[in-house]
Every structure is written in structure tokens, then in C-alpha cells.
């Protein structure tokens, strides 16, 4: 072998890395760069021509009514985050008890996560329908007199979608919190018990601080996925009843109206918003809990 030891090591390391890195390059890094370039152009898919338009796409968006509706809705969707987090921590504590049959209940709570957005949305559309289960129950119980248009009333539809997101997300975060809870060494609890701490003190002084890294992860994930909500909107309302969100608008511009440049511009603006929110999350919860 003529190669130095160091060069050999590089060669070996990169032979492990090369295929994954090439794939990431083509389908992850390249789209990020190309997307930014595309946002300054008018791309015609059929003729495959690119015409440079400068900031026209951005200007168009800033004068576009649905951009603001989508922006507002994506932010409104953040209301879901604290609710999901609060209740999924409670759920995780509840199912972390060692009592008979608890695994069965965990499985049941996870079913909405595992079944996927399409099935969940069809089932909920059936519940929210004008003649659906929800209206039927409320009418018969005498709570309402007229059926409510859960998915087509402008004032209600977004909240109906939010509730599905909440319902679908609880089990997902419950499992992450459960993993976080089970990672806390039991010696800590034993030591605290010997020192005479009561249950409340143990929860606030040991469980919550040690759950911090998990909480950071979960808040970050649920903030980003609330801003990025798409499936519920697409499957429940098709963006109707003023429920369009940034991601839905992005999809609509590109794949229904073939305005790729405008869609790319929206994607750039959207990326900026998401990065700001990710940084805010880190700042708010701090790096303190993060050890690696």
C-alpha cells in the first residue's frame, strides 16, 4: 500500500459515507439551493424554460390575499402546541405507572398515530359531516338546534382541523415523553425518597428538570409541525372555508397552478419563518439541558 495511514482512514470512512452523502446531496441539499434560485425565476415545466424575473415572485406574494390568510392560519395553528405538550406529558406520567394492562392502554392511545393521516381524516370527516355523528349527538342531546357546519363554516373549520391535529399528536408525543421518563435513572428517585421528599417535590424537582431535553425536542417538533400543517387541511377541507396554510398554499401554487417560481418564493419565506421559530425554541428552553 502506497497510501499513508491517514489517507487510508479517510478512504475507509468515506466508503461508508459516500452513498448516503450522494443521496442527501441530490435530494436534500440541492433542492435547498435550487429552490432559492427558482424563487427568482418563472419556470415553465412543459417547455422547460427559465425566465429571470428578479423579485417579481416575492412582490406577487406580498400582494396576494391568500398569502396573508395562510400566514395567519399557520400562526393560529400554534395554539395547538401548548395543549398537545401539556396533555401528552400528563398522559406519559399516567401510562408510566406499573399497573396491569398498562401496555394495552398505551397501544390504544397510539392507534391514531399509527393509522396515518388519510384514514384518520376520512374517519373525522364522517364525524364532522353535516349529517355526521357529532351533529347528530349534539342535536339529540338538545345542545344545538341547527346542525353546525364543522368543516365549511369559516369561523369553525380551522379549529375543527386543529382538534384532529391535537387528537392525532397526543399519542406521538406521549411515547417520546414516556421514553424520556424511563431514561431517568431510578437511583435518583430512591435517593430523593430516602431524603424524605414527597411525591410532589419529586415530580417538580427531579422529573421535570430531567425531562427538559425531551421537552425541548417535543416543543421544537410540535411547533414546526404546527406551522407545517398540511395533511389535515388537504384531507379535511382542501383549503376551503379559509383554512389554507402556508404549506397548503405552497402545494396549491406548484401542483394545481404550476407556478413553480411563486411556490419556491413562498418556500423561501416559509423556511425563514421556521428557522426563526427553531432558534426561538432553543433560546426559550436554552441549551442547558442538552448534554451529548
Amino acid at each position, binding site marked *: 500500500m502506497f497510501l499513508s495511514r491517514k489517507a487510508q482512514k479517510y478512504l475507509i470512512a468515506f466508503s461508508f459515507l459516500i452513498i*448516503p452523502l450522494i443521496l442527501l446531496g441530490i435530494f436534500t441539499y440541492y433542492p435547498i439551493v435550487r429552490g432559492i434560485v427558482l424563487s427568482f425565476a418563472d419556470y415553465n*415545466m412543459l417547455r422547460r424554460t427559465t425566465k429571470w424575473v428578479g423579485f417579481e415572485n416575492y412582490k406577487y406574494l406580498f400582494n396576494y390575499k391568500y398569502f396573508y390568510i395562510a400566514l395567519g392560519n399557520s400562526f393560529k395553528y400554534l395554539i395547538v402546541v401548548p395543549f398537545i405538550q401539556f396533555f401528552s406529558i400528563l398522559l406519559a406520567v399516567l401510562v408510566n405507572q406499573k399497573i396491569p394492562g398498562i401496555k394495552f392502554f398505551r397501544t390504544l392511545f397510539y392507534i391514531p398515530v399509527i393509522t396515518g393521516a388519510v384514514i384518520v381524516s*376520512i374517519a373525522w370527516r*364522517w364525524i364532522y359531516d353535516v349529517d355526521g355523528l357529532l351533529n347528530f349527538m349534539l342535536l339529540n342531546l338538545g345542545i344545538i338546534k341547527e346542525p353546525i357546519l364543522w368543516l365549511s363554516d369559516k369561523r369553525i373549520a380551522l379549529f375543527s382541523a386543529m382538534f384532529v391535529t391535537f387528537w392525532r399528536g397526543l399519542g406521538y408525543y406521549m*411515547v417520546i415523553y414516556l421514553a424520556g421518563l424511563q431514561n431517568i435513572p431510578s437511583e435518583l428517585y430512591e435517593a430523593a425518597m430516602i431524603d424524605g421528599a414527597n411525591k410532589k417535590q419529586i415530580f417538580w424537582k427531579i422529573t421535570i428538570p430531567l425531562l427538559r431535553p425531551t421537552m425541548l425536542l417535543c416543543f421544537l417538533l410540535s411547533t414546526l409541525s404546527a406551522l407545517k400543517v398540511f395533511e389535515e387541511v388537504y384531507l379535511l377541507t382542501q383549503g376551503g372555508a379559509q383554512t389554507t396554510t402556508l404549506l397548503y398554499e405552497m402545494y396549491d401554487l406548484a401542483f394545481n397552478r404550476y407556478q413553480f417560481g411563486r411556490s419556491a418564493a413562498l418556500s423561501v419565506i416559509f423556511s425563514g419563518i421556521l428557522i426563526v421559530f*427553531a432558534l426561538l425554541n432553543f433560546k426559550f428552553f436554552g441549551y442547558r439541558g442538552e448534554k451529548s
Partner: protein
Amino acid sequence: MKNKKISMKKFLRYIITYLILIILAFFFTFPFLWTLSTSLKGPVNLFKWPPEWIPKDPTIENYIMVFKKLPMLKYFLNTVIITGLGVVFQVITSTLAAYPLARMQFKGRNLIFTLILLPMLIPMQGALIVNFLTIINLNLYNTYLGVVITSAVSIFGIFLMRQNYLSVPRELEDAARIDGCNEFQIWWKIILPLVRPATATLAIFAFAAYWNSFLWPLIVLRDASKYPLQVGLAQLNSVFEGNFRQISAAIVIATIPILIFFFFTQKFFIEGYKGAVKQ
């Protein structure tokens, strides 16, 4: 006397806990139970007061109609192909890429790891358009490969495998090296078998993600005969013209495989997150 009081209190706590658990179980499953119930009902009296959760005269007619109107078996096979391909890709790329990042010393290692994690902060939905154009240029439009190749590398998977590779003791590797194994043999014969539970977890996560994937297959596939279940189901409303009993039957058919799968693999889901959130 005091003892009795305590056990009474404990008993009461048990009852309350289980009561809460049962109410929650209903909260999380009632849309599915309602769908199941609807799918077994005949055309008469869809609604009765109080709501009929267990139909009096159950019928499988709706299920027969679903199989007549929709190529369910074809959808199912398509889903199996897409999911299988995706799982294989993600497991191979993650187990490969994570190895040098966890167990080899070389300059620039941390930089590469950071670069790999970075896209987690960027909305990759923005990549949909460009990836769609790339797929067309690579002549992969309307192919199964086109559906899976864009997500063939899982960042979460690389992260998970790296965390698990780190936990394998150094001594095992040293012993193998003394016996004359090269780096690939060490990876394949020593380290990889030791992280098998993590690999299984990764495979299961990938399975669930691909099985339920919906938007990308919808964009990349043109022929309805190539649709996976989720995409096929999304067209239900037009096929069944709002016949909820038949739609419900289709949902039940599509849900059963994933529920069976989850029933047997559920412990890996919690283990997987434990591996990812541990320090």
C-alpha cells in the same frame, strides 16, 4: 383499622386510574369504532337514538362492494413494494453512514455530522418542487423507485444508529482488530449484530412512515394502478359518491394490516425513542 383505610384508599385510586384510562381509550378510538360500526350497517336506519354502536343486523355487503369497486389487493401490493424498498434503503444508508461518525477518528467528522443534521431545521416540503423536477429528469416519474429514493436517507435513522454504535464497548473492536479483521469486517461481523435491536427499531419506524406516506406518492405516481393504499383511499369520496358505509368498510380493510403490525412491534417504538433521547 389504619391498614384497612390505606388499602381502601389504594383500591379507590386503582379504580379511578382505570376509569380515566378507559375514558381516554374511548377518546382515542371512537372514530375507528364508529367507522367499524358504520361499515357493518345496512342501508336502513343509519342513525338511531341512542346511537347504535353495535349494529343489530350486521352485514358484510359493504365490504363486498369495496372489493368490487376498488383494486384493494393491488393497492395493498403496491404499498408492500414501496414500504419494503423504503425500509431496505433507510436501514442500509443509516447503518452505513452512522458507523464512521460514531466509531472512527478522522478530521472533519463532526462537521459532516452537523451537516447531516442541519436539514432537520429546514422545511423539506420546499424541496417537493425541485425533487419533483429531479425525478422527472432522472426518468423516475411514475415509478416505485421515484417514490422512495428521495427519502432513502433518514436523518433520524443516522442519528439513532450513531447513538447506538457509541454504546458498544471499545474492547470488542480491539480484540477483533488483533485477530486481523479489517474495518468492514468489524462493522459487519462485530458491531452491526450488537445493535440489532436499534436496527429493528429503525426498520419499524421506516415501515410506519412509508406505509402511511401520502403526499409524495400522490405527486410522483400518475397511474392509479400504482397507487399505494393511502393514495387510493384519498380518492374514496369520488368513487363511492359519499356512501359512508362503503367508505367505512374500505377504511377498516386498510387499517387492519397496520394495527396487526403495530400490535407485534409496539415495544420497539418506545425503545427507539429511548435510544434517541438518551444522552
